[in-house]
């Protein structure tokens, strides 16, 4: 007979390859009847030595699985140890951990047992017990099992803060090879079910505050990167499609890393961490900086540079766009300057209403000057030289030069 501790070791181990662990995006006030609330910020209660945040109790209900996805540690053909939690065990673990302030809530996933519908019902029953019986107000993230029925998605969204269906691999071709039972059509139809239901629910809530919330923190997905030859251009194209089509809150790019009993068709070494990092940088550029997927790579060089960040690469490829004047350029242009983040863009826009910015001001804002200076103009700086060091006093300034004698405060 397995103890809860044995099961926890197996079923947490089985869940660790899913990177999404965020607990942000859903505000839930304490209800006074049970434990738990969520302030919308997300909290990491610990960090493991892989640098990953421990925010939720991330476990599988069971790692028995009827599917045989090559890239997955829980595939049916793997010889790993198997276990299955009862819903009560998960409920008690969640509450006990939560009471000691170890976690923000529960992230529950599962191997596919019997059928997608049956599996989904099991996940929902755990979440329902937490919410209804124990009045649990913490964060709940449920995996949406691809191919389960619309009614189950509707139910899941009422008890969960976030739902996610994993796209798993960047292209349909990859899925055919490595995940024969999963079809991107089925996965995407589940995403679309979630997106549609959420739209309806949000619409209802605009009419009446009494309408129930549906998956307040939206949906996310995960892509395993580096298990197949798919290049970054394909990955970013898929990402754009998913963000656009299903209003995903986040896409997690997880670099492939070796795991026990892996299939021989998989790579032996982990995908370099920097590739994952570059994909996240590009993802951010697409969501917050106005870049398109097609701008970040080219058909000739379809992979992101591992040595330079994607914004710098783009900037070097588009000299016609620069230099950008921090004291005059519009927001969209400032966002494209390497070394300036979107928060600093807002600060610059606010400060320049009161005085023109010098290089020293940028330094105080912690702009990465080394990266930024070649691409921007400040009152005392033109790319290639720093004006303050130019010792040609008395030179008549040109009224039509890129820096105007009329704008500066010096």
């Amino acid at each position, binding site marked *: 007979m397995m103890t809860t501790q044995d099961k926890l070791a197996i079923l947490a181990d089985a869940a*660790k390859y899913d990177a999404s662990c965020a607990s942000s995006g859903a505000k839930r006030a304490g209800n006074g009847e049970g434990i738990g609330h969520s302030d919308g910020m997300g909290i990491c209660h610990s960090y493991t*030595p892989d640098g990953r945040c421990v925010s939720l109790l991330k476990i599988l209900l069971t790692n028995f699985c009827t599917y045989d996805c090559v890239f997955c540690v829980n595939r049916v053909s793997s010889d790993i140890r198997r276990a299955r939690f009862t819903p009560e065990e998960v409920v008690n673990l969640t509450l006990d951990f939560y009471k000691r302030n170890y976690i923000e809530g529960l992230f529950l996933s599962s191997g596919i047992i019997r059928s997608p519908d049956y599996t989904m019902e099991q996940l929902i029953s755990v979440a329902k017990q937490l919410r209804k019986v124990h009045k649990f107000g913490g964060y709940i993230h449920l995996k949406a099992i691809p191919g389960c029925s619309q009614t189950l998605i509707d139910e899941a969204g009422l008890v969960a803060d976030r739902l996610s269906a994993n796209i798993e691999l960047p292209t349909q071709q990859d899925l055919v090879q490595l995940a024969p039972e999963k079809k991107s059509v089925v996965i995407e139809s589940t995403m679309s079910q979630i997106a549609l239901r959420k739209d309806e629910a949000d619409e209802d809530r605009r009419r009446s505050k009494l309408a129930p919330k549906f998956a307040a923190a939206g949906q996310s997905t995960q892509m395993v990167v580096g298990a197949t030859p798919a290049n970054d251009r394909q990955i970013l194209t898929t990402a754009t499609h998913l963000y656009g089509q299903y209003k995903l809150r986040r896409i997690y790019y997880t670099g492939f890393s070796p795991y026990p009993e892996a299939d021989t068709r998989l790579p032996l070494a982990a995908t370099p961490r920097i590739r994952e990092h570059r994909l996240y940088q590009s993802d951010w550029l697409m969501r917050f900086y106005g870049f398109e997927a097609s701008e970040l790579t080219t058909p000739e060089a379809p992979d992101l540079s591992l040595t330079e960040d994607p914004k710098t690469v783009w900037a070097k490829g588009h000299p016609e766009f620069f230099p950008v004047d921090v004291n005059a350029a519009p927001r969209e242009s400032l966002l494209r300057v390497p070394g300036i983040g979107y928060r600093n863009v807002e600060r610059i826009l606010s400060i320049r209403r009161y005085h023109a*910015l010098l290089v020293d001001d940028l330094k105080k804002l912690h702009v990465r000057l080394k990266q930024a200076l070649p691409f921007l103009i400040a009152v005392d700086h033109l790319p290639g030289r720093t004006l303050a060091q130019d010792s040609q006093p008395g030179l008549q300034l040109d009224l039509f030069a890129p820096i105007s004698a009329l704008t500066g405060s010096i």
Partner: protein
Amino acid sequence: MHRVPLQSDFEAWRAAARDALHAGFRPEELDLQDATVPSTLALTLDTDDVATGAPIVRPHTSKAFLETAAIVAVHRSPDRWNLLYRVLYRLQSERNLLQIETDDDVSQLVRLEAQVRRDLHKMHAFVRFRKVMEASDPSERPVVVDEPIPIDPDPHAHHLVLVTPTPFGEVKTEIEACPPPVSIPDKDCEHFVAWYEPDHRILPLAAPFFAERFAIMRWSILTPEASVSWDPIAKKLIFGPGVPRESAPAEDELEDLWRTYYASIFNPARLNQEAMRSEMPVRYWKNLPEVALLPALIGGAQTRVAAMVKRQQQQPTAEPFLPAQRSLPALRDALPSCKGCELYCHATQVVPGVGASNSPLMLVGEQPGDQEDVQGLPFVGPAGKLLHKALAELNIDPASIYMTNAVKHFKFIRRGKIRLHQSPRMSEITACKPWLLAEIEALRPRVILCLGATASKSLLGGTFALMRDRGKILATPHAERVLATVHPSAVLRGRDQQSIEQLYQFLKDDLALAWKSAQATASPASFLVSPAQSSYSR
């Protein structure tokens, strides 16, 4: 210089600042000293200045500044009161000052605020509660005791007290009485206690978070300078003096489980200590129960990854033992050399497939049994005899079909003199699969009939459900028509006569269907698969 010593109290600063503005003190004429830091109170010889600025009778400020100031007020920097006054003074004439983050005062203000906010965030994250119950354990830890109330005139009056032993004696904090058993029917009187050392004086700012989150729990957070308890009945925070570390409980029953979780969720293939340390700086470690595992986890990571990679490379497969030429005789000759998995060590011999090399029908069983292992021929044991009986009843000549197994060696455990059949593991089925695929390639049968779950899973995938999908003709990459039926040994193991007859009927029906299908496809146009039957495709 006008000096005003201030305690760590935002309201005291507000009062002092208001007075100073009224009097017209310029920031450089005023020193709002931190009374908790002795050095700043050192006597100096210069005189107490008078205000030279214009008195500001009706000072104004913004909500945003007050919010920021309340946060900066708990910072440990002794200079924070002067900074706040300087900004407040400048705000009187420079209304937009806070927007200009490049200003030295503003950037300092923003920096202090960020540090306190980060400290708050980390406190919300890293507080660890430990559960304490009644006073049954004699060791030095906080206990909840039920004692008479000394000042109450009623001699029977008593109350619950949290007693925390300290080097200076016991510190007692009164706890509201446990609610009557009706409202919490299942629990004892639980009390959760945490010890925490924040960088700044943030306890009053941090407590409301815990009050909302753990509203129905009885909890206390103890820090060196202050402590706070939550009363879940009155919904009230009760602040008290600081206590030493020893007064907090030393452990909790759940911590082993928590450490198990922490160790299991760590992926050794992605070791990245710098990222961990930057988010969870070492100064927080001493109060985190899971951190005790770090040396073992970090030290063992490389070995674990190396072991995984080695196992993956050495995953059993028969692939290297297959001959270049894929004809049935060549395969038969090469088979005895196979050491693709461990099974060859114990079996007597390998059991190759038998039958006509031009057979349109291929039967795939699970693995050789005891008899087959001894004789070196497939389907000669009890199950094989049953199969031959069924074939005879259907008038099918066994010599006209090809019979083989998904796994070519006998797997068993010894029980005295008997060798008990043992199902092959998935890795062994996978390891042996190249032989089966090579046989299929060499024979090119029109129809493959899988006997039992092992063969079906090998050719039809892990999701194949035998009893649901048996007898259905499916198209696969291996052969145009593949179907599955029960294994004859399953018939022999039937529960009762009725189920034996039923299973035997399944076997016969499917054999007949497979044979008919194999015959019919000899002239392709004459046989059409009905749409319902071909719906399963992959």
